[in-house]
């Protein structure tokens, strides 16, 4: 059977990785002659691997910059909501995006300034360049306009944000919707509570794309896989994997 076996390698974003793995698993079940491997490394690895051809499909969890996009064909396979989270002990349940912005810009430094019980705010952010931060920066901070305060604690993964916020009653952070648990509290922003529904229909604004990147237009089995991913069957699996499908 191996003689006509076809291989696809996928590499890149670690946020997309679990989704891609689940897609691959289901696809391989239907197509026993196709072997798909999924490799992490980060969105940058996705971009370079796709460009170099080391991987047939690169993945990214943020919109590409013009220079990065050059020569690449992009397919958005899912959406991912980004939730502003605080400690469960925090008495606030909602904020406006302007309030979040001033907190992250460092203009508001105590919870009492915005109606919470007093406590100096501990701002936790993701690392520069991460898909999550990119989206947050663009949609909350306003593009390159205002930067996140320099003294903010930087954490490099979804789980690390979760644990940091969980462990500190005065913390605030942001993270992928799929990973939010009852350990922390997701805030309603501008009156919209984050949920798959609100992300999917676009009412919840803070979100980012999950992208499949190919060098040029996909062909053959790669094209078939991507098409399948976009089909209702594939999108159902995206949903199972915790991401928000393109169509609800």
């Amino acid at each position, binding site marked *: 059977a191996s003689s006509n076996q076809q291989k696809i390698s996928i590499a890149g974003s670690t946020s997309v990785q679990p989704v891609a793995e689940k897609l691959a698993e289901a696809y391989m079940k239907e197509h026993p002659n196709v072997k798909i491997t999924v490799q992490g490394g980060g969105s*940058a690895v996705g971009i370079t691997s796709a460009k170099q051809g080391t991987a047939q499909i690169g993945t990214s969890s943020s919109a590409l910059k013009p220079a990065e996009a050059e020569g690449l064909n992009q397919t958005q396979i899912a959406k991912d909501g980004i939730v502003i989270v605080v400690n469960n002990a925090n008495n606030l349940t909602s904020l406006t995006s302007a309030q979040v912005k001033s907190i992250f810009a460092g203009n508001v430094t105590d919870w009492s300034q915005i109606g919470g019980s007093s406590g100096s705010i501990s701002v936790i952010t993701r*690392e*520069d*360049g991460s898909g999550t931060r990119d989206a947050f*920066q663009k949609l909350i901070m306003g593009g390159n306009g205002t*930067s996140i305060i320099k003294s903010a*604690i*930087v*954490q*490099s993964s979804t789980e690390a944000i979760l644990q940091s916020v969980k462990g500190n009653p005065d913390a605030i952070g942001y993270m992928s919707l799929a990973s939010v648990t009852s350990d922390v509290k997701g805030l309603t922003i501008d009156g919209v509570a984050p949920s798959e529904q609100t992300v999917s229909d676009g009412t919840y604004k803070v979100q980012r794309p999950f992208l499949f990147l190919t060098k040029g237009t996909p062909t053959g089995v790669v094209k078939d896989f991507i098409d399948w991913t976009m089909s209702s069957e594939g999108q159902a699996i995206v949903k199972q994997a915790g991401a928000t499908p393109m169509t609800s």
Partner: protein
Amino acid sequence: MAKKWDEILVEKALFITAISSIAIIVLIVAFIFQQGAPALQQVGILNFIFGMDWDPTNGFYGVFPMIIGTLGITALALLMGVPLSILCSLFLAEVAPDKMRRILTPTIQALAGIPSVIYGFFGLIVLVPIMRVYFGGSGFSMLAASILLTIMILPTITSISEDAFRSIPVEYKEASLALGATQWQTIRKVIFPAALPGVITAIILGMGRAIGETMAVIMVTGNVAQIPGSIFDPVRALTSNIALEMGYATGLHYNALFATGIVLFGMIIILLLIANYIHYKKKVTIGGGYL
């Protein structure tokens, strides 16, 4: 003369292994430089090293706070870790009951096999909250990282120096004890000096581990690229800088991360030169004496 051929062959083979280590080093160094040099050129070496701002999105590439961060974390970790590890290795080699040693030695070695991520999570979930409660601030701090590193370098330094202590010929020990020296005097004046080369190697390897460690440090330092006011403030290490952003960096940003690697490399070389200078000064011959 078949034998002679064997010998020459063996020597050549050994030479090749030695050279291959060099080749590996050269390969990696060349790789780092090739990837990092463009950033140094574009940003300017001095701007890069002494720049106070790291903000790739807006084109600022200065690593000075991280140099301080790395030095601080490493120094603090060595300050706590070296004495603890060496005392512990002395404990194992000279004091601990045999049965205890037989369990402890492998367990300490196993400590070297615990993934950094786990150390990181341990730090994040257990250590950071404790630090926050007792020392204020966010808990993310230089000290938290140093404590983790102290534990992480413990197995390297302890195991290697324990071996160094235990390989000192018993004759020396006997001679000292027979003169009425206490065990501690014997350790301090005979065993320790004779084992010094091994201990220094252990420290150097431990220092390497401390400088090079990434994953655990990332989770507990807070990664704030600012010069810390105290050991309770958050900092960012050079290694963290590379690991944090490498996943997303392209173009100049990517090169700048490797340039961070070059700076780190320079620091390592300076630290090693210092360590080797001490090493050279204190060089003792053991196992010598030909009769």
